[in-house]
């Protein structure tokens, strides 16, 4: 079957209903059904591929990275850093004297950078007035529906070390 019609003086019906079955351009019911079947089969195979990939995917390995010294930030202070790669900005907040929290800085709505709003003790996204709780990164207000990915922190000899991400959407 030829998919493209060469310019010719022959009328269209002679092409569509050619005497030679190999040259027929008219898409008949059987060809259309075949096309539908093959397409749905391809979609099914694609879904299987996605399923297989999600089954064999390994948990990502995160590097340990020192973020700040314990007394570096005042209570209510914040600091940005990049973790786990240099392209992913994160924000560290000292919420109380002995309490720290760190989150990915990308708003889960449209990836604007969130900042710490000290007065209301929440993380704010300036783009669309989205707000996140400092305690767990859950969305409070505005368009974002998902919580901010949280950075796991460990205290190693007076040094805050980032060891991994939680709740990251891949």
């Amino acid at each position, binding site marked *: 079957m030829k998919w493209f019609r060469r310019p010719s003086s022959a009328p269209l019906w002679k092409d569509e*209903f050619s*005497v*030679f*079955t*190999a040259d027929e351009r008219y898409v008949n019911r059987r060809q259309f059904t075949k096309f539908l079947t093959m397409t749905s089969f391809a979609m099914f195979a694609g879904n299987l591929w996605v399923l297989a990939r999600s089954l064999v995917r390994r948990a990502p390995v995160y590097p340990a990275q020192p973020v700040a010294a314990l007394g570096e930030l005042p209570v209510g202070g914040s600091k940005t850093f990049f973790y786990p790669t240099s392209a992913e900005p994160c924000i560290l907040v000292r919420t109380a004297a002995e309490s720290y929290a760190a989150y990915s800085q990308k708003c889960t709505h449209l990836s604007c950078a969130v900042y710490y709003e000290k007065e209301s003790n929440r993380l704010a996204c300036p783009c669309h007035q989205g707000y996140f709780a400092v305690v767990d990164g859950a969305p409070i207000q505005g368009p974002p529906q998902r919580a901010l990915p949280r950075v796991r922190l460990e205290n190693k000899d007076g040094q805050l070390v980032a060891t991994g991400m939680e709740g990251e959407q891949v």
Partner: protein
Amino acid sequence: MFGMEFYVDPSRCIGCQACLKACEECETHRGVSMINFDFVDRPETIATAAYVCWHCDNPTCAQVCPADAIKKYDDGIVGSSLKPRCIGCSNCVLACPFGIPKLIPEYEQMMKCDMCYDRTSVGKRPMCATVCPSQALAYVTPETIAATRREKPVNTFWFGEQKITTKVYMMAPAATDSVSIDVADYTWEGEHEVVPQAF
């Protein structure tokens, strides 16, 4: 198909009509023979000629069909008319230079030889070729024909200005390259000539 070709040699025909009966046996058109069988010159001779559809490379019957009912398939076979499409208009009957298609009035449908497509497409020989005792209708390899016949297989025909090349071969004298048929001369009846009757 499968390296086999169809060869027709009317000079070998002994008039037994086994091909007609064998063709009638076929399941796809039981009871109706698709063989064209002619008494060549009945008052003068007992000579007969049996032949099948020639399966032209550019089939005139299909070109004139207004209902797209006659198709030439990828392996060179020109099929009989497709039953849901054929409107029984007889265009093909009138147009075919060989006079092959037949309109079957009971079915209001044209039927013609499709070289036993159900058999040849799976490597079997057509019904007529399996029974022909003199192999006037032969379905063999070109090597077999070259080794067993003096005649030369020809598949080019001239009907006046119309040149036709076919899938089926006619066995012709060794010096022949094409068969020219002067239809007007053939149909001229003369003053007292009796028209040969086609079967």
